[in-house]
């Protein structure tokens, strides 16, 4: 996955990204940090082709996303798992149904859905809560449901936008541990976050955005070490 000279200007004239170059290798775990409005969410939206760059190229799996026709976009998104700060779960469906939903709406045969859902729930450790509604779960459990849903297509890339933003520090660590474990399974993870303590403690690759530009890209903490 790579971005080359990407610029994104929204129709209202606001420039969200300016000349961004970024390459992610297979199996990497990368933090995307920066103040609000620095362009983190825009960058993630470009990767799932929810937005298109004004100029420059977004390459995913060897394909230029700008050249992917609209009707092929769903196929592309099935290869990417997405996790949000607000979980985006369906409140009227149980944990299991929420995870299965991602497969049902993409036309997966029923006999393949059940084992895939059970596998994903096992990875996030929610087997016991599978038949509960999201509203009866804690924030951490809801986020783990969302991660199970992101996993169920067996993606090679997971994009997480502030996944710990609504969680207290202890639960945040549980979620990070879970993402690290998934990363060990070979899944590339790109996580946008404000959580300085997590970023600093893990000493992984950190890409810092500021006013739409990459101002730092190195292994290290949330803030520049010097």
């Amino acid at each position, binding site marked *: 996955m790579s971005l080359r000279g990407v610029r994104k200007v929204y129709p209202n004239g606001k420039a969200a990204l300016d000349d961004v170059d970024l390459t992610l290798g297979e199996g990497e775990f990368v933090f995307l940090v920066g103040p609000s409005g620095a362009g983190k969410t825009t960058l993630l939206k470009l990767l799932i082709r929810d937005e298109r760059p004004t100029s420059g190229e977004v390459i995913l799996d060897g394909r230029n996303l700008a050249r992917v026709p609209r009707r092929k976009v*769903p196929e*592309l998104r*099935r290869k990417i798992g997405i996790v949000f700060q607000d979980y985006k779960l369906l409140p009227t469906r149980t944990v299991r149904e929420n995870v299965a939903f991602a497969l*049902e709406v993409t*036309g997966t045969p029923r006999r393949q859905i059940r084992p895939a859902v059970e596998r994903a729930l096992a990875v996030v450790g929610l087997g016991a809560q599978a038949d509960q509604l999201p509203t009866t779960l804690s924030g951490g459990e809801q986020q783990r449901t969302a991660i199970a849903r992101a996993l169920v297509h067996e993606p090679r890339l997971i994009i997480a936008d502030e996944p710990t933003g609504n969680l207290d520090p202890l639960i945040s660590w549980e979620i990070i541990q879970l993402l690290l474990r998934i990363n060990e399974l070979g899944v590339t993870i790109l996580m946008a976050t404000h959580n300085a303590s997590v970023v600093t403690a893990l000493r992984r690759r950190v890409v810092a955005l500021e006013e739409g530009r990459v101002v730092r890209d190195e292994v290290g903490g949330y803030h520049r070490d010097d």
Partner: protein
Amino acid sequence: MFGFFRFVAFSVTHGLQGLRRNGLMTIAATATMLLMLLLLAGFWLVQAGLAAGVSYVEQKVEIVADLHDVPGAEGALTVQAVALEADVAALPTVRSVDFVSKDEALAQFRERLRERGQVDLTGYLDRNPLPASLEVKLVDPRDYDPVVQLLQDHSRVVDDVVQVQQLVSELTTVTGVLRTGGIVLLVLVGFVVLFIIVNTIRLAVVARREEIEIMRLVGASDAFIRWPFIFEGAFVGLLGAALALGIIALVSGPVSDFMYGFFRVLPIELGSLQADMALLVVGTGFGVGVLGSWLSVRSYLTK
């Protein structure tokens, strides 16, 4: 092929699930559909009744030609009258011609007197004073001119043509206004119904924009997002239509009794009317349900 069946099964089951899981919205949409379809059916019935009444009144318009009444020459005049009747009947604008003989005219007169409970004094007359006549009914009451012309040309037989011009022009003005007004009103009500139902379905879809967003994010194709909603819309439409028809069936007995009592003279054929109306209600419910869903979901897909 197997994938297609899975897709249809998915759409139907998820459409029904959507109805169940969003119970309040489903009830609101179905209730709106029901009320609007009842409104539409009601207006359609009024319009159809009006149109039937109007054509019934128009059928009543006839040209009456009184024939000469010469004592002793009745036989010869009748022969000429029958010949004239055939000529009139041959005109394309004529629906029917009736020859009413002097005896028949008297019999009708006596019948009317008896109906009104008046004393019949005609027995005291030494001779039947009523003339024989030709009663002409027209296809379109506005085309009276050729018939009147033909009848007046045979002045040896025809004594007097009762003037209908004034009556016809007034009547057709009124019936024309009623007909056009009825159709305009029906079309207006139809548009109101369309907009209200489409809006209600739009609300039901907006209430579930999260679900649509999630579907998009996990890689559902547009068809998988759209069709459950379309099945939902179709179902709401058909349910509303079925309920509307049920209610109409329940009240149609008392109402048509009342209508018959009120407009005794109007021969409205309720049988074919109800078939047309059922088709209108079901077609509108289904069509608007599908259209409403299609339009509502579309705005979430185009990007």
